[in-house]
């Protein structure tokens, strides 16, 4: 569904991603782990066209090279981006935040057509809070809202950037369970970033580990679970 081939990205003069190869097949949960500052967020930003990669690399989504397209076109192909730090719009209500995720043009192949009702079914808490301003939501609720807002655009592939960061363990667990539900019940393909999370490792079909802008491990989750040395060295577990 999505594949990155030799992707190189820079911030100004500084090269952050070096020949990144990565792929997500339809219906998979793929995890990308790595310590602070190794380039995880930059990988997602590169896919979205927010930090466009340079050089000869390729990013193919559903058999089409999307590298070089502006972010809105990439989003309209069916990729949903859930950024880190829960970038909700604090001065819009929950419902109006959801409105910003709706798209007028995208003809989606996603199995579910999301609307308020469907989203509220999945996040009952948001229904209760629908008229509250985004800024008055708790961290966990804001994370739910960021995901819900992206779902309103009917994505087929969801990119999640550290969704459980800074959340209390129980709430973080809810978020990760939800990701699994999105795959199982709604057929979404998912690329999820975490520094490291045993729970994500448990749910992921495959995983990658990144260090200094390079992919240093790629395999099924089982292999990473067994590789205690790698976990210690690269993930600080």
């Amino acid at each position, binding site marked *: 569904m999505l594949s990155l081939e030799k992707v190189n990205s820079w911030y100004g003069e500084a090269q952050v991603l070096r020949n990144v190869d990565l792929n997500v097949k339809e219906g998979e949960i793929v995890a990308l782990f790595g310590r602070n500052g190794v380039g995880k967020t930059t990988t997602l930003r590169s896919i*979205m066209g927010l930090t466009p990669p340079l050089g000869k690399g390729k990013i193919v989504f559903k058999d089409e090279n999307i590298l070089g397209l502006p972010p809105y076109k990439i989003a309209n192909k069916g990729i949903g981006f859930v950024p880190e730090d829960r970038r909700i719009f604090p001065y819009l209500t929950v419902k109006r935040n959801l*409105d910003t995720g709706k798209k007028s*043009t995208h003809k989606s192949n996603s199995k579910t057509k999301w609307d308020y009702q469907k989203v509220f079914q999945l996040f009952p808490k948001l229904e209760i809070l629908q008229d509250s301003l985004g800024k008055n939501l708790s961290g966990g609720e804001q994370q739910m809202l960021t995901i819900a807002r992206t779902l309103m655009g009917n994505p087929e592939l969801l990119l999640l950037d550290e969704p459980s960061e800074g959340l209390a363990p129980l709430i973080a667990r809810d978020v990760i369970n939800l990701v699994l539900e999105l795959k199982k019940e709604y057929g979404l393909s998912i690329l999820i970033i975490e520094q490291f999370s045993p729970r994500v490792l448990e749910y992921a079909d495959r995983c990658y580990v990144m260090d200094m802008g390079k992919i240093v491990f790629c395999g099924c989750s089982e292999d990473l679970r067994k590789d205690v040395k790698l976990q210690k060295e690269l993930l600080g577990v």
Partner: protein
Amino acid sequence: MNTTLCLALLFNGIVLGLIWSVIAIGFSLVLGVGQTINFAHGLLFTFGAYFFFSISRNTSFWIAVIAAPILVAIMSLFLEVVLVRRVYGQDPLFGLLITFGFAIAMEEVIRMVWGKAAYSVSTPIFARGQLILGNFVYSRFRILLALFALTILLLVLWFMSKTSFGAIVKAGMFNSEMISALGHNLPLLRTLVFVMGGLLAGLAGVIGAPLWSIKSGMGTDVLMPGFIIALIGGLGSIKGTIIGGLLVGITTSLAVLVIPRFTDIIPYVMLIAVLFYKPKGLYGEVTILGEVRE
């Protein structure tokens, strides 16, 4: 103190506040979404007034009411596509300078086309006469103009707070990158908002034309109050801008009673006072030119 005089000044203040609000809202939207200080906003207002004057003289009052703002909107589309588009995402100073230069040049064009003399618009027949309440007498035309301004403001308020487009515009002021990542065409959004700002400036020109004498520099006289009100109300808040406009308009008008020679400084003093206590303005959602992340 004379109550009828006070009442007349109060009414004047309301009329002034409403028209300033219409100007300020257009300015504020462009500043919020395009991060551009549109110095030519006053010029667009001036064109609205001149177009209204010429069209109403050659055709009819009602055709002019409709055609003048549309012509100004088309002008602002041209301005956005040719000039302003180039400076998005750059230092706001570029946008300010480029629109400033455009405004100066076009003011010269106005003098070439319409000459240096000031014009005035005559009151249409349906709006002639006075509103009389006891011994208080007030121009009926002014009241109609104020109601027109109020209608425009309420329409914008509705549009921005109830439609999805409004949500996207507001969100775009806060974090434009996120808006693109959610699948919205940011360049197109900015163009639309700029044209909307132009339309509002043109409408303000239509309202201002009968109130003030029509001259090439009239835009400069309203740009500053408009800018100040946008800041007082708080960027991105339509409600704040309307309240700010009325506050500044009424205070400026009533100040004649107390400090007749210094009324011009009232908006500035109010701006300093408000920003001192509320840096984001009365109902501010973003600080000027800043994406705030909480």
